[in-house]
């Protein structure tokens, strides 16, 4: 299980960084969303990680996962959801104001 998680985190990071660097603003936003999930997966594996074991178990002495990273991820998910909605709103305004979806055309700020 650990090895699958490790590969999944690595692969997700690779895809997301490629995607965020695209010129199309919508694709780039998709990359940002995926990047958040890659990081959440990384945070999950940073705790005492026991694969599919749950965080809380009723019987004592059995194997259990660390609950703290899961709480952290919950916060991070909520924040990144708000952030995604906000990014999409900004993309909406930018694409109507500049009449483009190419990042290189959004260059109104001059020195």
């Amino acid at each position: 299980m650990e090895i699958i998680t490790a590969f999944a985190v690595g692969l997700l990071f690779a895809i997301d960084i490629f995607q965020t660097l695209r010129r199309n603003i919508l694709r780039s936003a998709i990359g940002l969303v995926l990047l958040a999930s890659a990081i959440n997966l990384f945070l999950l594996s940073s705790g005492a990680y026991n694969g599919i074991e749950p965080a809380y178990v009723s019987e004592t002495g059995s194997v259990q996962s660390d609950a703290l990273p899961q709480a952290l991820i919950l916060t991070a998910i909520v924040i990144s959801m708000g952030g995604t909605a906000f990014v999409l709103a900004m993309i909406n305004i930018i694409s109507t104001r500049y009449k483009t979806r190419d990042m290189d055309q959004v260059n109104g700020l001059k020195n």
Partner: protein
Amino acid sequence: MLTEHMILTPVLIPLIGAMIALLMRRTYRLQAGWSLATILVSLIVSIWLLTKVWRSGQPIVSQVGGWTAPFGISLVGDPLSVLFVVMSQFVFAAGIVYAMGSKDSVVRYPMFYPLFLILATGLTGTFLTGDLFNMYVFAELIVISGTVLTAVSDDRHGTEAAYKYYYISLFASFFMLIGIGCLYAAYGSLNIAELAERIAREDNRPLLLAGITFLMATFMVKSAVFPFHFWQPDFHAAAPTAVSAMLSSVVVKLGIYGFLRMTTLLFVGHAPMIRGFLVVLGVIGVAFGSFSAIGTHNAKRMLAYSTLSQIGFILIGIGWGTPLAVAAAIVFTFNHSFIKSAMLMLAGYLASRASVKSASFEVVTGIGKALPLSGILFFIGSLALAGIPPTNGFISKLLLFRSGIDAGQAGTVLLVGLAGLLTIFYSMRAFQRIWWHNPPAGSKVKPGGDHLFAPIFLIGMVMVLGLWGNLLVNLARDTGQWLDNPAGYIQAVLRR
């Protein structure tokens, strides 16, 4: 018991004030007045906390919800964080005063004051929290409120600048999360005091260096340190004046706070490495910021680039790392917030009086002939930026150079001293163009504009801190000594 929980108030008062201000969104005057009252109460409370902490020399620690330190979330008001809180509340109060007198249409936006207060909450929260993950949450609060405030700016390109900033600070947040993850995987704690204790005990766990690197990258983005500075001039120039004055003066100090904590508390074992890096970045920042400021054609952008070089000076102070140098960095931080916010407000004032609403030199050339008062203020502000006597900028530079010579770094002092001379060049050039040149034919000065109360207050503070700097210097010196002994912080939080 009561004093302990008073440390929560600088965070809670603006937060609750923002919620109540939201209810007043239909009555603009009431909302603005309420916001000012909120921030003033919060300022008074934080000054009271500062005197309390300074007198006793011990931090005020509050464990939220009564859970003891490593498990619960602790808020720590040690001399450093309380001093930073007082600094930010002062500037935020001035910012609200400026916004109340501003003619921008953005201040009429019903969410403006609530978001402004949320920005203040986020900043005080990051300074006061004793938990790394909490710091991330508060930093995210700053990012979102700052971005929204810029996106609704009167400037047509505000949204573009906000979009750029949001992307880069989202990356900073991700870096911070990865750094937190690395440290948690290596040491199993997120409480700063406990983390510091465990790292001091065993500082060669595999993921530690990765954690340090990612946290450094985060704070570098937050403070717009040299290689990560590119978003900053755009963002600070496009934001509404009241907001850009906050962003460029106190919000960039978040990274400075982070670096101070990293070198004096969290990673004491690796501090020499981090410090060496900071000195190099600082020298590059001073030179690069000054040269870029010379090359700009817009007063607000010039000031934003000047922030880059002033942050460089502070980083050099942190990098030298002696208690005196750290004290000098703290004095510099404090003074720079007042100078830079006043200067940006003056640039915004000029833009509000110009025929086109812009601080670009083409538009504001010669506009100052009709506005002598702002000229005097701008002149004093320029002196302070350059570090020339009766102002507080002189004290901060003197202290910094003195600490550098004591630390045996005369070469670096000479280098940054020369680069710092460029400050006089660009700020005086701006002064000349705006107040001495003749305006182009046919240009008119608008009759009404923003009010000058806030810049007058801030420049007054600049003079007061320049003439009677003893109090601040003593405070900073005690803080530098306190930071020299990380065991004090750890013991106060963990109660061992």
